[in-house]
């Protein structure tokens, strides 16, 4: 059953007041002006706990307008517990339409996955980010890591990639694979699979990243160059899915996630469930929410 929400009159459209929305929008604009740069912002409380996408939610609620059609996914799936709850929350504070169709959504909030469907101009993808700074792993001091970004001093990051190649024969990094934005800043793309990084490169859509707990917003504007770090002789590679296809729709061109079957073996399924459904000719209806 639904938890009781505040009655209408208790909060404005999209829950946040105009002051908060304005401060998030200013940060978003700054982030777009400096692709890949982490913009600090005032990250006020929202009705979900930190670590559950508060940053992404703040961006979504600040940007959404009455004509927006929104979509919420979690590791590619619209129907996980978190995705369902977030969708209900956004729907009830806005009264907007939610869709499963990535090609028709104007605003997509996602955790750890970029939609597989080709995106177009005017679409915004908001990614929930936990660790905005790719350097934090090597440098605990914020002052020092800021200087490193300012001076494009990414030696320690490259060194980690080198050591990975020496230890494993290739760059053995799964999620949070560091990418260079417009040859200037290194950005942590969150835990999206390596597969998704080419989807962000030169995309017509706008990508925004919100880290609520760390209080940072960063952006990849449309048609921006995203280059995952790699060496001349050990370049970046997406996950190896040779010979694997989705058991439901047969796709070999989408990111596949393994599911353990009853027999103990793994089957592979499209991570992006709506993409998979569309390939099978199934469509779920949009939901027109009522403002509470």
């Amino acid at each position: 059953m639904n938890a009781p929400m505040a009655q209408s009159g208790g909060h404005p459209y999209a829950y946040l007041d105009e002051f908060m929305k304005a401060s998030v929008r200013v940060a978003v604009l700054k982030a777009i002006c400096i692709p890949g740069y982490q913009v600090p912002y005032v990250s006020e409380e929202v009705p979900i706990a930190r670590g559950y996408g508060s940053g992404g939610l703040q961006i979504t609620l600040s940007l959404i307008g009455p004509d927006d059609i929104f979509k919420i996914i979690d590791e590619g799936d619209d129907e996980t517990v978190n995705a369902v709850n977030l969708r209900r929350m956004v729907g009830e504070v806005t009264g907007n339409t939610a869709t499963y169709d990535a090609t028709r959504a104007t605003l997509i909030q996602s955790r750890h996955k970029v939609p597989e469907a080709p995106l177009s101009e005017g679409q915004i993808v908001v990614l929930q980010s936990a660790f905005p700074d790719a350097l934090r792993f090597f440098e605990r001091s914020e002052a020092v890591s800021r200087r490193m970004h300012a001076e494009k001093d990414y030696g320690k990051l490259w060194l980690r990639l080198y050591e990975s190649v020496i230890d494993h024969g290739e760059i053995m990094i799964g999620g949070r694979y560091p990418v260079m934005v417009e040859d200037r800043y290194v950005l942590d793309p969150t835990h999206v699979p390596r597969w998704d990084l080419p989807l962000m490169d030169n995309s017509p859509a706008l990508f925004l990243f919100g880290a609520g707990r760390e209080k940072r917003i960063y952006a990849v504007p449309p048609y921006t160059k995203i280059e995952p770090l790699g060496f001349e002789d050990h370049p970046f590679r997406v996950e190896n899915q040779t010979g694997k296809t989705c058991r439901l729709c047969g796709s070999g061109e989408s990111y596949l996630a393994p599911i353990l079957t009853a027999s103990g073996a793994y089957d592979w399924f499209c991570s992006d469930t709506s993409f998979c459904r569309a390939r099978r000719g199934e469509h779920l209806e949009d939901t027109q929410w009522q403002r509470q």
Partner: protein
Amino acid sequence: MATPVIRAAALSLRHGPGCRRCETQPDFDGNTCPDCGTVWSLRDVTFDVAPGEIFGIVGESGAGKSTLIDILDFALEPTGGAIHYDHWQGGVPRLHSATAQERRRLRNFEISVVHQNPRRNLMMGVSAGGNVVERMLAAGDRNIGRMRDAAGGMLDHMELQGRIDMRTDKLSAGMRQRVQIARALVNRPKVLLLDEPTTGLDLSVQARTLDLIRRVHRDLGLAVILVTHDWGVLRLLARRAIVLKSGRIVECGTVEQLIEDPQAAYTQLLVSSAL
């Protein structure tokens, strides 16, 4: 005479406001002005280093030797005077007017430092090869095969064959020092700053490291500024030197002159105290 590659002109580093007495009449012993309490870590230090020469800076603890190295390495800013580096803008402007980016470039490619304590420069949890490769990565190299060949060659040169993938914290002190030297040289700098490079090492290791420094200096023809308190090391490596005490130059000359004909009282004291 060839233009000096490094020229220090009236270099000073003070902590405190300064006053008429310590600015114009520094007749006190030690670093601290009795009138205003200003501490002068370095005062009016002037010298020049010819291309390809090994230049010594000798003195006891607290003399200001490491401060001088820190200034040359951009870790500290001088409060007075200037350093001029011949390969940056023809040696005309003060080296410390360089921007952060230019300083990084200078430290990556032109002026390298080897500290007495290798932990200042080395990442202990990273392999020896990794510590060397990091410099090449900072210089923009992106080819692992080529970098590993260069790092491996450099480490072989330092008598560290086969240790390219060994974690630095598993190496002995002498080996770590040689990794530091390899790291400092891999981008072929023009100036090498050595801060007590063999102090604290066992004698046999010292001999090996000094021999290495001599060879490397000959092979690469770089200018070296060598800070030491050891007159034996100075005599072995350096041609000319300055003697520092309480931040001031007490005497300067060729190393032979300083050892055989020390003229300042302090130099005589140091030389006669040397084993």
